[in-house]
């Protein structure tokens, strides 16, 4: 390779890598483009005390329920013992998986497709032998279920709820009557849309939170 081309390659490649490291270190536009996934080294950037699974269930016109994922044919278990849909923490691709299954199986007409999150405390993953060493109480695994999304049979999004974690976060925050009252101060009981708000489909701010209803 010609020398100048090699130098240009070295400088460009190392420059891109350094940009990725700097972007990640400073939190600057690190999720702005799919290409950033190739230069941002954020392995194990998150964690949780709860294990999650994704269930995709179809309800037929008869009212009966069907397992839409995993599909009835042989499934790939990409990284261990779990099927692919469980590696979709943002549930962005569940409807694609569901539509593929419905397209390639025999079934009654579907009424809707439901995406349900199942979550449990990770300590229940311990084998019984280790559990008995660390805990005096009996191991009684308990799962939480949370309806995340609903789709029509053609993939149209019907219902979009916040994730189970966001729901629990908001429950913790809304467990504060003073905070709840402050958030409502200055807001009228009932507000008609103004000309400005009526002409926009979405609020100006991207920070409109969907608050869980206090229980």
């Amino acid at each position, binding site marked *: 390779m010609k020398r100048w081309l090699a130098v240009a*390659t*070295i400088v460009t*490649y190392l420059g891109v*890598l350094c940009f990725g*490291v700097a972007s*990640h*270190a400073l939190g600057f536009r690190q*999720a*702005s*483009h*799919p290409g950033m996934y*190739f230069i*941002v*080294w*954020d392995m*194990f*950037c998150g*964690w949780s*005390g*709860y*294990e999650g699974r994704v269930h995709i269930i*179809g309800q037929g016109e008869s009212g*009966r*329920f*069907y*397992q839409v994922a995993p*599909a*009835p*044919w042989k499934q*790939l278990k*990409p*990284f*261990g*013992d779990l099927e*692919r849909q*469980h590696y979709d923490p*943002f549930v*962005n*691709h569940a409807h694609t998986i569901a*539509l*593929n299954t419905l397209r*390639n*199986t*025999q*079934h009654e007409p579907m009424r809707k497709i439901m995406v*349900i999150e199942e979550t*449990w*405390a990770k*300590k229940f993953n*311990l084998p019984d032998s280790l559990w008995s060493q*660390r805990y*005096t*109480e009996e191991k009684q695994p308990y799962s*939480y*279920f949370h*309806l995340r999304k609903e789709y029509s049979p053609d993939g149209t999004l019907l219902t979009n709820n916040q994730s189970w974690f966001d*729901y629990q*976060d908001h*429950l*913790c925050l809304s467990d504060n009557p003073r905070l709840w009252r402050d958030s409502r101060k200055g807001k009228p009981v009932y507000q008609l849309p103004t000309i400005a708000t009526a002409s926009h489909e979405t609020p100006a701010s991207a920070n409109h939170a969907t608050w869980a209803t206090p229980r």
Partner: protein
Amino acid sequence: MNINSRFNDFFFARERPFGLALARICLSLVLLSVMVPRWSHARELFSADGAAAPLSVNYGMPDFLPVPSGTVAVAMASVLIFTLLTSALGWCTRLSLLLSFGLYSYLNMLDCLGTLTKYSVIASHGLLILSLSNCGAIWSVDALLSRRSVGRQNDRRLLMPYEPSGSVYGDVWPRRIMQFLIGLIYLGAAFTKMHTPAFFSSDQMRQWMLTNVNNANPIGEWLAGYPETLVVAAYVTIVWEVVFIFLAWSGYGRPLMIALGVFFHLGTTLLLGLYIFPLVCFSLYLAFLEESDVQRLAAWFRRLARRGNRAAIALRNAVPRIDGRLPEISLPQARGAFAFAALLLVFGGVELEYQLDPFGARRAEGAYELVEIDAESVGQMLRPSEPIRDEDKFLSFEIGTDLLGDVVVNRRKEFRHGDTLVAQAVLNPPHEDMWVECNLLDADGHVIDEVGQIVERSKLRASWAYEMKASLTPGEYWLVIRVRGRNLTRQSFTLLADE
């Protein structure tokens, strides 16, 4: 020496690409082990006829990459299997590596659920750098055919060329940027950890050791009970990741950094159940292999052969044996055979996948039917979302004598007068601000002491210290965690009699 000459020496010294040749072979074989199981699922994973899950959807750019049809996806996966194999063999090496890089990166970006992970990204970088190098100049089919073309097919020294032979020498810069890649990956990973305080408190890795999303990791599940080891390991890891790029070039730093890296990645296999990520990293570590290392290894190998070691002699004779079995073809003919084999594999792969009928669309009994789920089970799943139970908010409750990095150490069940007992409850996020009591009970369940504290929503630890005073009579006791009037978890200990 001025900067220009240092730059030239560092990036443009001439060398034989031993390290990159080994990296080429190892990385290609590792990626073959990843892509071969996915080949039969290519239609489902990578095509619009299946359930492709493009990474770009997660970034809000659903149309960033075109999603191919099922047949094209299968053809691409077939070509990728072929080019990974030919990359390992070193047959039309540069073309094989370029095609492998392009196809591997593209197909991975089409399936962010079951194919694309960070090891895929690292491997893509590795394939790109290898395609820019002359890693196919040695230990490859290309090298064997090239020797024939210059009439040196009987020169066994070219197995371990320790004399300059011109054609196998190349600039060192591809190996240098691969070394920089590894160092910058670790530096980026260090920044990730700096952004994650729970890494240093052991909470993050402890929970990762308990997850079942990766392969089985029984050692990790056991070690999760000793979080103090994770606290120490966290600081060692981050120091290693930060200094790697500065120390891994020469001298004692090179073997030390590589050895720590091997230890670290083996740890991820044993503790987290990661198999492929370490193998990809080990493949790229071969970029740190210098010519002098290979020459020392070759000298040792020759000594073994001279002493009559059978394995060494067999290996020494293997190359001429392999060479003798290869057909007598020229380089242009070999390239033609490559193209023919690739086409054969494409058509063969597409036809084989059609015959396998992964979706069962052409089964004699018709398409698969959906599995019905009973209404009661679904009713359980559709019950209203509920808040987390108090008992699930607690990960552990342990007693010991001290704290290290804010985790209990020296866990014991027996204490004597004068000892200090430290009890600690570890919580899972999210939790609200809580009032948590740690009550001391005797063997008959009588409450001796009640101590409560506020555990703010941002805190994951609640610790209590008890002095084993003379007023406590020897015997068995219980420490009980109580929230909202309910006993959630408990630990027992024995106060031993004074000797």
